[in-house]
């Protein structure tokens, strides 16, 4: 099971926390021993052709997706229905919304089981404990400073690393 990224959005649609775990980069052209001419295909063309979205833009796109789908689900299934997850051919997105409209989103690979309980645990055991109960952390996050909390970040890291045996 691989977790690609994790986002928290507050009730004002502000992304207050984002974290990406990228798997170890796969190395292709391994070594070219004693070659007179190194392959000229490295570096520049790929770097120019790649129009990389920043993580900020990704967070906005993810929020938009999740928000639209949540509204769609509520419209069709009634107010007490809740959007749980979706999957494409490449990845899975898991969603959990607290009663206070804080949204937890996690992108994982297709092999992972339902992460609903895991997201709930992140909320109850980590977010509430380390962020909400912290008297120094702001309740609102205008300007996108977000959750800047070492304890939370460390325990989240540990939680995600320990996920496979737990589920």
């Amino acid at each position: 099971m691989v977790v690609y990224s994790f986002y928290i959005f507050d009730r004002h649609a502000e992304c207050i926390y984002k974290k990406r775990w990228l798997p170890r980069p796969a190395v292709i052209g391994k070594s070219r021993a004693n070659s007179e001419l190194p392959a000229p295909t490295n570096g520049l063309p790929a770097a120019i052709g790649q129009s990389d979205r920043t993580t900020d833009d990704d967070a906005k796109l993810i929020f938009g997706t999740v928000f639209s789908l949540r509204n769609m689900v509520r419209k069709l299934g009634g107010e007490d229905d809740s959007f749980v997850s979706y999957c494409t051919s490449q990845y899975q997105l898991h969603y959990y919304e607290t009663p206070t409209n804080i949204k937890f989103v996690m992108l994982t690979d297709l092999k992972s089981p339902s992460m609903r309980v895991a997201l709930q645990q992140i909320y109850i055991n980590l977010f509430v404990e380390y962020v909400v109960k912290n008297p120094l952390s702001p309740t609102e996050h205008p300007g996108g400073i977000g959750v800047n909390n070492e304890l939370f970040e460390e325990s989240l890291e540990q939680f995600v690393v320990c996920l496979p045996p737990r589920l």
Partner: protein
Amino acid sequence: MTVFSLIIINKAGGLVYQREFQPGLRKLSTNDYLVLAGTFHGVHAITRSITPKIPLSTTTTTTSQSHHQHQPSTSSILTTHKSTPSVSTATATTPSTPTGPSTSSSTSTTHALPIPGTPVTGLEVLESDKFRLTCFQTLTGTKFLLFTDPLMTTVEPVIRKIYELYADFVMKNPFYQLEMPVRCEAFDRHLGGWLRGRV
């Protein structure tokens, strides 16, 4: 097994067919269904574009014996590739190990998909507490949205059969105008009959 309803969206995001088979979902107005179809069409495209990309480092390693007459050529090759950090490491390591081979690598990152073999698609299955939405996109871009019970596991054959019926009774209907709302009585009849037969 319970099939709640079926929605067909054309390649431009317009609603062309909507039908409820069994109660379970809330009824929306025609306008709401149109909005839903358009929204889904947009979200479908976004879900495809936010596919996580795994960085793929293409490492080209050039190993050369570090004789002093070779070094200018190596550094000139490296400077043409504009990888200044590796130039500095090469010059830093060469004096310390004068006889060993000096390895200098220039790394460029491209991206790979999480599952490299399969093409990237948008949203395929959406799950909520009360229903499961399965989206099947045909090669021409038409989307079939089937709302089923979340416990129902085999949706794929149902959606294939619906596509087959659509091909037979809608696309082969000489009076059907492409991309326009589907009003084919034979399609309605066969669809209803087939789904009833499965229950």
